[in-house]
């Protein structure tokens, strides 16, 4: 078991390194292939009408005049031991994990990311609880009452949930229920205000996922209910309630939980559309701005963070799988 976990952790670290190399490559090599010079790259970070001297100064300051390999080396060094920057009268030390200073705002990337993590975390936690509870219970009920009005109605709603994009449902719900907008209040300031303001984003986001989970649970339940062991359980004379909850639901939940782990990991890397629609200053919104500004340190920071969450979620799911299912460990 220890060896299994170790190899998985090692794989996760390797995955992060590869991600950072790919992002670096996309940022530097792709524009170059398209015929862009480093001057043109640097010119994006100066005001309008930059002079050649200004561009040269910016290039030097941002390190864009160095070979990509050296720039990458500096980036990795920053994450491991920190780096020093001079953006004014004094030299600044950026402690590890230093993702560098933003090209545009000239602020260290890491503290801003950590600051925004609380918003994304709040959004993901609330929404995931709602969708897990709602999605699974609707799925189970639908499966048990297959073909009834409830089943059909629930599945139509679920279909709508899966197909309607957040920027539609989000704007619609804002206009209907809270035209005054959502103002994020940190949990530590006021738990009530926190929950009150996040309720609408939670429900909107959960609507999308709950729909998916309901459909999956329903399909899983239907499949499980036709299995031999359910018939055996019924034959043993177990009450129907025990058959559905203890036997059928449990077997159905394993793949659902796997999916749940991955979805949470994905969401923590930024619920881009939800955060944008509801103007929540989270990781997703940060990612959009970073990409819009072509701000490499920010893009790298946010990509690495998102990748980290996905890799960790994967790792946990893998380990839980191994715990739950001995066949995984043996192979």
């Amino acid at each position: 078991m220890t060896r299994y976990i170790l190899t998985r952790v090692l794989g996760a670290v390797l995955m992060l390194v590869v991600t950072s190399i790919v992002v670096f490559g996309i940022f530097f090599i792709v524009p170059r292939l398209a015929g862009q010079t480093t001057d043109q790259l640097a010119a994006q970070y100066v005001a309008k009408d930059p002079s050649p001297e200004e561009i040269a100064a910016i290039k030097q300051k941002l390190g864009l005049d160095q070979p990509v390999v050296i720039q990458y080396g500096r980036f990795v060094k920053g994450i491991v031991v920190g780096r020093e920057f001079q953006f004014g009268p004094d030299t600044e030390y950026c402690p590890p994990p230093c993702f560098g200073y933003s090209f545009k705002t000239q602020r260290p990337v890491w503290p801003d990311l950590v600051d925004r993590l609380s918003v994304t975390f709040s959004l993901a936690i609330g929404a995931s609880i709602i969708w897990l509870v709602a999605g699974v219970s609707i799925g189970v009920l639908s499966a048990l009452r297959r073909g009834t009005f409830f089943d059909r109605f629930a599945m139509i709603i679920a279909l709508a949930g899966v197909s309607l994009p957040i920027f539609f449902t989000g704007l619609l719900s804002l206009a209907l229920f809270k035209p005054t907008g959502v103002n994020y209040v940190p949990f530590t300031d006021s738990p009530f205000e926190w929950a009150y303001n996040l309720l609408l984003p939670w429900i909107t986001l959960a609507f999308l996922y709950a729909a998916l989970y309901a459909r999956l649970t329903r399909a899983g339940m239907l499949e499980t209910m036709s299995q031999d062991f359910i018939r055996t359980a019924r034959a043993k004379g177990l009450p129907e309630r025990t058959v559905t909850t203890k036997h059928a639901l449990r077997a159905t939940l394993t793949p659902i939980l796997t999916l749940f782990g991955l979805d949470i990991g994905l969401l923590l890397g930024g619920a881009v559309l939800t955060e944008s629609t509801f103007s929540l200053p989270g990781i997703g919104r940060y990612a959009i701005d970073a990409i819009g500004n072509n701000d490499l340190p920010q893009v790298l920071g946010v990509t690495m963070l998102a990748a980290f969450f996905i890799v960790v979620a994967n790792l946990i799911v893998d380990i839980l799988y191994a715990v739950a299912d001995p066949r995984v460990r043996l192979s």
Partner: protein
Amino acid sequence: MNRRKLTSITAAGLALGLLASCGGGGGTDNNGATGFNAAAERVVNQSTKTGGTLQGALSSDWDSIDPGNTYYAFSWNFARTYGRALTTFKTGAGDAGLELTPDLAQGLGEVSADGKTVTYKLRPNIKFEDGTPVTSKDVKYAVARTYARDVLPNGPTYFVDLLDAGDYAGPYKNKDLNAFTGIQTPDDQTIVFKLKQPFGDFDYLVSSPQTVPVPQAKDTGAKYLEHPISTGPYKVDSYVPGKEFILSKNTNWDASTDPNRKQLADKIDIKLNTNAEDIDNRLLAGSLDFDVAGSGVQASAQSKILSNASLKENADNVFSGRLWYFVMDEKVAPFDNVDCRKAVQYATDKVSLQTAYGGPVAGGDIANTMLPPNIVGHQDFNLYPTPDNKGDVNKAKEALAACGQPNGFNTKILLRSDRPHEVSAGEALQQALAKANIKAEIVSVPAGQYYTRFAGAPNYMHQNNIGIAFTGWQADWPTGFGFLQQLVDGRTIKPQGNTNIEEMNLPNVNALFDQAAASKDPAQREQIYGQIDKAAMEQASVVPFLYGKGLLYRNPQMTNVVISFAYGMYDYSILGIS
């Protein structure tokens, strides 16, 4: 004009009546009645009521709140709440808002006989938020730090270009301020700018936040934006990039030293990176007071406002100061021939371009000159008139014959693919030109590098045979010089980041700029700006089609609301909340 006067007189009379009936008890005097476009004509909801929090929002973020490192119009307007420059624009409706008035300084600049020395005396008793007095050295330092282009790259470079400071590289490389020779400070109240050559609009230049004083001891370079030291009625409580910007009253600001601003609300709270539709919803729901960007509401809110009388009376449809136009590159055949350029001038259907930009309310008014109406020097003329501005195919064909292309020609239109208005305008132009047998192919490129790599790189234009390029422009200060110089002065053509995209380089136009710079008479300068506009239009390589407008919405709770013509949005320095 008469009608305008009449309405404002009536409004004032009504308000006086109201005041009288109030018995003068409260702090509110309600003159400045509301109404559609009211804030363009008068200060709406005039009040001296204090307290409350002004709620603002922005769909993007600041480039920087450091007064020395910012270049957005809204940012320059808003910076006046926490910083005082040497001069500023008057608070008032209409053309009054284009007038300069001294701010930190006691008067406008005193220009020496040779025009190369401009002197300002500071008002006494102005303090920073920490209570230390503001001296001329703090202003000098503020300008000096804008020379550190590697640390503070966002602002304009007018001081770097104009001041006689050798190869000074900013105070971070050399901490001795005496090394900066472009400005002298004979005493704590006097500041003397040394120019390389005369510059008529210098008073406008020093209205930029780059002259907002910065104490050298408190300067932290790029990090200064975390807490710029205030001299205005508000001080920065916190600024978190991408999230929020909160200001509160600066207790060391003294109203008796500042005739231009007001300190009414207790706090100003601005949420950054707020979704644009969300901003509109909040504005209309009353939970938000103003959109800081000041560029107008989105399409869905526009229709809501225009179809609802009670919303409409809180809206203003105003010139943003932006000109939308396209150019023909004089170095790319067949546009090296003036008659071929004229053919395009006549063939252009400006109404279809206006529609592409959202029509008269959201887009703007049809333009036939380069200078928009709210710029000093604007004159009304039209060198290429067509019926109803819809284009004149016959005249276009005559011009084509004159340029030796009676059967038309092929060219390319360059535009920004991520600007929906521009894309539809490009298609509209393509159709209009086709009627005159000018076949244009559309080349769309990303906006992010439009000026560094595509339209702003003459080499790219030549190599790819791009005849026509769409662009837009807003002046750094509202005079003909501030507006036109970067667009039509041939000496500003650059290998990249070029804004004189048509590559117009006419000795007579260039000379007019020098003449305006050397003139000390504002009236004469104003007249020269009109001449430049005409001379540039005669060259036929620029086709202005729209004076940009936006539909702004003001929360009826907001007091002292007036459009500043200088910024094309609400004046942020006097707002309050009732």
